[in-house]
């Protein structure tokens, strides 16, 4: 493959930028600890550069972009139905939830609405991906703090949810199931009962984790009072999701700005914790998994019958216009700003993913902490690299 001049120049520039950072690090005072891009704690390719004084961090920088895959640009050369395949891979632990806001934005532009049954199943799968995502977080959190066992329990019980997702959509990680105007298929036979059994399993998992991890004195002493984010700071950095609710801000898009999903017809609660430390963020997530299992149960009971797909043309052309839809994804607020010029594909897609904003507070938060607390704080902020870099 021959590179164009522009590509070669871009490559040289990138190399030079990397070199400048390294020179800056070498000439700096104190010890510089470079964590990543390959490091066991970053579960992905996040690079964290911490300047240390002994074991204390004097300043820390987060460098992302090592996993940038250019999804926003790629969306421009795909047709609307093809985009879901891409955006599946943004937050790879809760894939279905990535598709929903994009499809909702496209539906808003086309002025179609999915039939009620499709909306209910969307909400159901949305919550299932939340459970699949956040239950793994709980295991991973313990792993970061040195306990191996909960991670395996998390993988074990998450499997029940993944099986349910797989039997509806055909994909364990990347369902690609949402369509403009509805869903690809209806639920298979006997699925509802299996799902309810899986939810019982997941609630048992939550109880187990509450005893094994959250109730552990060592865990509490590692997380309580570590990495405190006051509510005002959390808001000014644009945090969302459990990171924001862990700081005591009662804000949840599912309740406050619900579009296209059926949360307003369900009975559920937004959990918050006033402390704002690592423990409260983790605690809020645990409660959200529990809450999600009850939401799934309610949807299973109240699922309306009817069509799964609204009437949409075979070749989808979205009328010119702009739409921004954000939903409360497992990691926080995820929004798609879609600009259409009337073609089969979007003209421009801007993805607002939660982790990018959530990780932006890290330099502020890491100043003055000890090296072990870096891990606690990063783990409790809970980011997915695909969600940061897109």
């Amino acid at each position, binding site marked *: 493959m021959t590179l164009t001049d522009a590509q070669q120049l871009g490559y040289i520039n990138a190399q030079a930028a990397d070199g400048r950072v390294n020179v800056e690090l070498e000439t700096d005072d104190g*010890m510089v*600890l*470079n964590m990543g891009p390959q*490091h*066991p*704690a970053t579960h992905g390719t996040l690079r964290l550069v911490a300047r240390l004084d002994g*074991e204390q961090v004097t300043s820390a920088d987060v460098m992302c972009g090592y996993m940038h895959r250019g999804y926003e640009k790629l969306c421009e050369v795909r047709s609307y139905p093809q985009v879901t395949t891409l955006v599946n891979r943004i937050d790879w632990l809760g894939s279905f939830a990535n598709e929903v806001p994009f499809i909702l934005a496209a539906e808003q532009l086309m002025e179609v609405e999915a039939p009620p049954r499709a909306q209910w199943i969307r909400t159901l799968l949305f919550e299932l991906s939340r459970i699949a995502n956040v239950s793994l977080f709980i295991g991973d959190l*313990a*792993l*970061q*703090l*040195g*306990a*191996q*066992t909960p991670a*395996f*329990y998390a993988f*074990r019980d998450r499997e029940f949810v993944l099986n349910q997702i797989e039997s509806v959509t055909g994909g364990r990680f990347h369902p690609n199931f949402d369509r403009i105007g509805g869903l690809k298929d209806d639920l298979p036979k006997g699925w509802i009962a299996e799902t309810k059994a899986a939810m019982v399993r997941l609630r048992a998992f939550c109880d187990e984790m509450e005893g*094994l*991890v959250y109730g*552990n004195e*060592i*865990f509490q*002493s*590692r997380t309580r009072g570590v990495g405190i984010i006051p509510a005002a700071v959390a808001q000014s950095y644009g945090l969302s999701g459990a990171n924001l609710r862990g700081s005591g801000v009662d804000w949840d898009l599912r309740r406050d700005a619900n579009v296209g999903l059926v949360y307003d017809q369900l009975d559920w609660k937004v959990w918050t914790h006033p402390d704002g430390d690592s423990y409260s963020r983790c605690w809020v997530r645990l409660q959200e998994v529990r809450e999600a299992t009850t939401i799934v149960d309610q949807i299973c009971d109240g699922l309306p019958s009817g069509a799964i797909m609204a009437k949409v043309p075979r070749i989808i052309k979205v009328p010119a216009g702009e739409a921004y839809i954000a939903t409360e994804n497992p990691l926080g607020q995820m929004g798609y700003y879609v600009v259409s010029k009337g073609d089969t594909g979007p003209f421009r897609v801007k993805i607002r993913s939660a982790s990018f904003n959530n990780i932006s507070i890290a330099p502020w938060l890491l100043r003055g902490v*000890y*090296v*072990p*607390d*870096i*891990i606690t704080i990063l783990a409790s902020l809970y980011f997915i690299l695909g969600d940061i870099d897109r």
Partner: protein
Amino acid sequence: MISLSVLGVELAYWQVTSLRVLGVLVAVVLPAGAFVYLFLFKMMSFMQSRLGPMEAGPFGSMQLLAEVGKFLQKEDIVPERADRRLFFIAPYIVLASTFLLFSVMPFGPDVYFTNLDTGIFLALGLSSVSVIGILIAGWASANKYSLIGGIRAAGQLIAYELPMVLAVVGVVIQAGTLNLQGIVAAQHQGEIFGFSGIGNPFLLTQFVAFGVFLVATQAELTQTPFDMPVAESEIVTGYMTEYSGLRFLLFFIGEFATAGAFAAIAATLFLGGWALPFVSLDDNSMNFIGPLVLFAKMLMVGFLIFWARFTFPRFREDQLQAFAWKYLIPIALINILVTMILKVAF
């Protein structure tokens, strides 16, 4: 090693010596292998609800050989800026400390390498030699993770050496001797409120010391919850980060052999060592049964050690130090005080 009069054979000095060397190798490698297979492979899999080795040999028992083969095949990489000589000798120092620990362990009435009057004292002294190896490894690797890990390990091992020694002092006071054979005999001949059937394993009277000893052991082994020096989610694997192939294997054997050594010490001090109730201490058969009895007791202690390893998250460095100095050492001191008072009173 076995004084060969037991077998009724007279051997030359060099033959006895080579038998001893062989004996040490068996004594170190066998428990290490058993601990890795039983606890790290099998028990961990059961506890963590995952599949352990199953394919290689019956119940995956040959997996151990496969792992060793894997490490031997790997390239031995030395970092460019490492201090080569120190980098090479560090794992041997760690391993030597483990080997020496077994030199004072009694396995039966006549089965021992040396029978020193200050046996337990020497054992505790030798166990801290490994700190030097770890510090050297951390420094010589020319890696920041290794350095942090090495320094953390040094701080931790020094802090937990003290409660360990203090815990042992309680036993020594009760037994009235530093000789490990003497401690075994004291437990075998002791009696519980006039009942002398099963002797008096010091676990019953020194349970506080046993607890402190186990916690300190956990810290000395740098296992969870005290695995800050090798915390893989922060500093990769600490002082072992740059090691690969054979040298990593040596560290690995050292870790598990040390676990075996500390389990053996705990079994000797608190569980009666190689002695069996109702069997005379001088019985010749104990020369053969004794090592097996000790091994069984080692596995019991090992179970406790590894159970904790698979359950807890890890302490932070400052919490770990505070735990040693603020809790363990005062508890061990109070234990000594109470033991002394009771020793004088009865």
